[in-house]
């Protein structure tokens, strides 16, 4: 546990020391700022009586939301292992008395917390709204929870991709492709006619699980689903790290 904390705090710091953090941060804030601006514009328009909740608009209601969620994960995780492999610091890291699980979890938590920190900055939007108008905070909080959990899955995938190559660009592209594949499993539903298989496809869809969160429903099933996907992907990362083929 002490090792895990030491490693995670090192990852967290390393992220904020790198210029990537600020590029990604700027990109992210631009996207979210725009989404917020759109939200305010829609809410202000007396002709529109939106059939959806505000949280549904902000969390998943726009293209920009998905763009930032899907793009951020590869950018946050691309350096995780690739950078250490390229510079050779991985050798020093892996000869320290730490387990592979500790190393992988630290990389994951470091990126996941950074992702959380980026999203936390958007809380200021709701702070402003709440100052001006009464606000139901429940669905907003569940929206954040869903976004964070979904991000966890994508970041786990990014960490896996990063453990496979010493090139950050390849890591980023690979994780983006994997994320898109994982993400589009749900779209296969269109081609499935058998109702039983359709249920399976829907269950595996990252998107469907997210919808409840943005409506303000916190169900244990999607939480379990997201956490198990993270665990599986991180397990694969540990295996990758342990296999001699990918080492050094």
């Amino acid at each position: 546990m002490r090792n895990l904390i030491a490693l995670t705090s090192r990852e967290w710091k390393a992220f904020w020391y790198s210029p990537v953090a600020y590029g990604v941060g700027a990109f992210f804030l631009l996207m979210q700022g725009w989404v917020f601006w759109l939200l305010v514009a829609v809410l202000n328009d007396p002709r529109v009586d939106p059939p959806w909740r505000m949280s549904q608009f902000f969390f998943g209601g726009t293209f920009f939301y998905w763009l930032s969620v899907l793009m951020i994960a590869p950018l946050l995780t691309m350096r995780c292992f690739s950078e250490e492999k390229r510079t050779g610091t991985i050798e020093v890291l892996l000869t320290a008395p730490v387990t592979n699980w500790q190393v992988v979890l630290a990389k994951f938590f470091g990126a996941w917390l950074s992702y959380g920190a980026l999203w936390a900055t958007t809380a200021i939007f709701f702070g402003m709204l709440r100052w001006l108008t009464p606000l139901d905070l429940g669905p907003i909080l569940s929206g954040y929870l869903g976004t964070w959990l979904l991000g966890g899955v994508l970041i786990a995938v990014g960490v896996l991709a990063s453990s496979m190559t010493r090139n950050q660009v390849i890591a980023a592209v690979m994780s983006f492709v994997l994320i898109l594949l994982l993400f589009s499993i749900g779209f296969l539903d269109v081609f499935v006619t058998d109702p039983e298989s359709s249920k399976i496809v829907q269950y595996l869809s990252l998107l469907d699980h997210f919808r409840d969160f943005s409506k303000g429903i916190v169900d244990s099933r999607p939480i379990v689903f997201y956490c198990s996907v993270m665990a599986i992907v991180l397990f694969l990362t540990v295996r990758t790290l342990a296999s001699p083929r990918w080492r050094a």
Partner: protein
Amino acid sequence: MNGVIEASNLTKRYETVTALDRISFEVRQGEIMGFLGPNGAGKTTTLRILTGLLAPTEGSVRIDGLDVETHSLEIRQRIGYLPENVSLYPELRVQEYLAYRAKLKGVARSKRRERVFEVMDRCAVSDVRRQLIGRLSRGYRQRVALADCLIGRPSILILDEPTVGLDPHQIRQTRELIKSLGHTTTILLSTHVLPEVEMACHRVTIINKGAIVTVDSPDNLRRRLTGRQVVHVELQGDPSAVEEALKQLAGVARVSRKGELDGFTTFEVEGQAGCDVREAIFQLAVSRRWTLRQLAQVQASLEDVFIHLTTHEKE
């Protein structure tokens, strides 16, 4: 076998190359073992296997009696490893980095600061402790990495070319440091620089093309080649007559002509084992009235031994 490090039949095969071919060796408690070989001989591969970074294709390593593959974590706790290409996190400051490594290596919080200062002092990096590692010269970085090796007070040090990139002064300091550690710590040190072995090591393992050529002390190695005396003789006289006469001398095994300069001819005379032929050569020159300008015994250096062993003895 009572070695601290025991490697038996280590083999490492990559798809097309065999990097190591059934090598076995042991390093004893408190010993400084030199691992000597030309580039590409398999030194780094061996060291990586010892630290558990690589898994051998065949064979096994036991450190303090524990198998590296099954007790990796305990063994890493006892080893300080300095990799071949030192790389450290460039965005950290020296003291910060060492404190982080101390934490990872399980140094108790109350002792961490003291320990960090102790190793910075030993490795002469105290003066740059507040600098970013990325801004340091190579020599400093090398010594920061060495400080990192020592910070967990390991009982075994595995150093892959510890003096590469240092200036002569720093090289001497590092060697002194290694020597001073040698009393309490078992050290395996790889190098392709011979003086390093001569100055610091108790025993040398010479490795070439993935196989061990020989294991011996530096003194014994030198003796093995100097067992036969080689003398350079430079004198004036009819070269073929001189050569003939030298060959007739008792105890001379071989004579060869090396060159000519201002009427003097140089011969290389090799004596039979255990014979000193210098006196006989002098008496010969006097009796024949040949002017003798040089009579010198050639000291075989470890370098010769090394070249000799890695080029001839293998076949």
